[in-house]
């Protein structure tokens, strides 16, 4: 269970909600309403007052790097620091399985990142985010650059992550995908309205 308790992200109303294991919370709202800021605050990448608790442990009780290994933020445009994807994924177990799950050729791992397409980079970014099996996935537009086929595979991967017991917080502009994946949704209106998670009829 991921518990957000009175989290005060700058520019957003104080937020409280829960994401149980195996479930997905969709965060929705217009551009600039603070979806990314919320995800970053949960990963403790930006300072925010309030409490974020994962399985009974508040984020300040563990060193920040350890927290982010458990609570993983994945940006819409993954950034890379080495030349090839393999250098970023060296320690990842089950790499082959993840690659084939997203329809990627393993040869891509050794090509220079700069030569890959946006969609390939986004899928490799998703693999990098899930490879070391974090407990929580904070996915910021994980399928924005993917064609329908690749996006469907990515959706399958996310669903599989939930089945494996992970919690997912998803930001996506694809209403149908959200409807298929999300168990609850959180609407960020951009105004100072109190935000609370509303259950959606499945």
């Amino acid at each position, binding site marked *: 269970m991921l518990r957000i308790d009175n989290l005060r992200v700058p520019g957003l109303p104080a937020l409280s909600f829960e994401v149980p294991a195996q479930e997905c919370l969709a965060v929705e709202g217009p551009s600039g309403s603070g979806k990314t800021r919320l995800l970053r605050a949960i990963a403790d*990448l930006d300072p925010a007052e309030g409490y974020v608790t994962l399985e009974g442990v508040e984020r300040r009780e563990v060193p920040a790097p350890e927290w*982010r290994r458990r609570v993983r933020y994945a*940006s819409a445009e993954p*950034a*890379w620091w080495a030349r090839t994807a393999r250098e970023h994924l060296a320690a990842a177990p089950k790499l082959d399985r993840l690659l084939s799950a997203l329809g990627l050729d393993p040869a891509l791992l050794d090509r220079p990142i700069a030569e890959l397409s946006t969609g390939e980079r986004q899928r490799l970014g998703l693999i990098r985010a899930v490879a070391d099996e974090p407990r929580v996935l904070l996915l910021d537009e994980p399928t924005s650059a993917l064609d329908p086929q690749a996006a469907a595979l990515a959706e399958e991967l996310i669903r599989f992550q939930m089945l494996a017991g992970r919690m997912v917080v998803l930001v996506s502009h694809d209403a149908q995908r959200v409807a298929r994946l999300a168990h609850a949704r959180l609407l960020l209106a951009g105004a100072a309205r109190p935000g609370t998670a509303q259950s959606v009829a499945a």
Partner: protein
Amino acid sequence: MSAIDLSLLDLGLAALLLVVNGAISLAFGLRLETSLAVAAVRMVVQLAAVGLVLKFVFAQSSPLWTLAIAVVMVAVAGWEVSQRQERRFAGRWWSYGLGNATLLLAGGLATLYAVVLVIGPEPWYAPRYVLPILGMVLGSTLTSVSLALQTLTEGAERERAAIEARLALGATRLEAFSDVLRRAMRMAVTPLVNQMSVAGIVTLPGMMTGQIVAGADPAEAAKYQIMIMLVLTGAAGLGALAAALGGALMLSDGRHRLRLDRLAFDRQGSR
């Protein structure tokens, strides 16, 4: 053998060259004559003052006076480091403090090492040795530290996404900064490497020139210059390391977050 003392007349003769410059400026409408004159007067006043101050301090040969001058030198050098940054740490005292701490650490250690262990004058704080060497070390370390901080802050801004990606994947702040840190340190030490490679071929370094003119044996002067180059390089490496590490820690926080909000772009462009 010692140097020929220069009389005021000799200096006046040298100043004629400046008059030539002024004439060229007037003739070609360069409008440099005022700044030339101001700069020349500043130079004369500053150097004369330094000469007098050093003469006084050398005569005292007191550890307190030596320390006082050294503190002033470090303070001015630290100020210069913070002035040279395009991006300053928000709150200019941080910037100033980092520059000063780094120069004090690297410059102070290198100078003490050179004077006390290598040269070994009697007494060990002899201002005739400590102050000129500290001056050279600070002048050179100042450049290294500025380069390290400049490269670090630029790199952190340009590679913000990569740094944050590493943090998000569970890297510590120093791991996330490692590439930028490495580049900052390389940039800072490279000028010294170049300087060592061409020393004596392309350039005859200032200290050696001075000693030769003052009547020293060129072979002895070369030995001093070799020692100085080694000390300067050591100080540059130490200064670059301290500045880059300190800068990286200031651009992040205890929760291993990238804090570029602590960086203020200097828009007034004070230089």
